[in-house]
């Protein structure tokens, strides 16, 4: 079984080495593991540090957004014929030790998609992020008809079936909602796994800005209209 770990990253030199080094060396049920750092046109040392830490770096020459980086990663997973692909944020807000749990659910319970849901320490989540997340859950539900507790999570696992079937085209953060839409469209078997979130000063400053929500909604609506 081959696992592709996909880390979209933009200027994450402060956290990237820690994130890659924290990925478990051995994961039950996995015989081969590939770590892909998709460098979204970073201007800092993200690529160099990721390579040094043991990741294979895919470089997007111009900053395109987390959506494009994620799609590139999924295409790489397809290319190496991965059985499971897993996306992980590069800012260190996810605990890489939870990769094993996601992989276990896909292998044993045959889920197509496992969504890492940031609900365990919701009280630690900054209030504005919590509100933004709740609004995006509702918007995702209104647009795609599937309610999930954390539609904007970047920690997700995909089975080979999902990797092959997903048709994604979002460039930015709207990819998270688009994936939920694809789960609904393709009737994929999914599970929301509660995950811990590591909120540091650094990770709090990274990720989506609240005002970006308006932009995401506009792009999702345009996508639905233009197909």
């Amino acid at each position, binding site marked *: 079984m081959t696992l592709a770990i996909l880390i979209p990253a933009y200027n994450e030199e402060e956290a990237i080495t820690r994130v890659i080094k924290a990925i478990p060396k051995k994961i039950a049920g996995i015989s081969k593991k590939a770590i892909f750092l998709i460098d979204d046109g970073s201007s800092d040392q993200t690529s160099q540090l990721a390579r040094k830490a043991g990741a294979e770096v895919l*470089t997007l*020459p111009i900053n395109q957004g987390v959506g494009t980086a994620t799609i*590139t990663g999924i295409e*790489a997973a397809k*290319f190496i014929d991965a059985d499971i692909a897993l996306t992980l944020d590069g800012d260190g807000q996810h605990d890489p030790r939870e990769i094993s749990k996601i992989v276990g659910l896909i292998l044993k319970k045959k889920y197509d998609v496992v969504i890492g849901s940031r609900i365990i320490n919701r009280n630690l989540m900054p209030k504005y992020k919590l509100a933004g997340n709740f609004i995006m859950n509702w918007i995702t539900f209104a647009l795609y008809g599937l309610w999930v507790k954390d539609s904007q999570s970047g920690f997700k696992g995909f089975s080979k079936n999902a990797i092959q079937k997903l048709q994604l085209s979002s460039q930015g953060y709207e990819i998270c909602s688009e994936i939920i839409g694809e789960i609904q469209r393709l009737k994929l078997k999914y599970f929301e796994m509660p995950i811990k979130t590591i909120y540091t000063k650094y990770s709090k400053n990274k990720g989506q800005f609240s005002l970006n929500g308006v932009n995401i909604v506009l792009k999702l609506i345009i996508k639905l209209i233009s197909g």
Partner: protein
Amino acid sequence: MLFTKIVALIIGLVVIVKTFTDYRNKEENLQMVLFWVIVWGLTIYVAFFPTVIGEVIARLGNKNYTIGQIVGTGFVFILFITYRIYVKANRLEKQLNHLIRKIALNGLKNNKKKK
């Protein structure tokens, strides 16, 4: 009316300054700079002296057109231009995105071939 004048002045000046900055950074040629300066200069002038439109129509000898018709035609034209720009920008964005993804994956494919 004062609001319209202020908005036209601010937007016009922003565009003119941006055009000059682009020219200084060698991202725009002189012809385009002149074009935008004339277009926005005229826009600001019309915002401050709207009666000029009526005078121009009168001089052209056709008094059947009203200001409303002229503005309406202009609005339709601007909507058409916006649509064209949206279609072209969207197409370019998709093509660029596809190309960038291809470049990123080429590295991986070449590495696998070497191995």
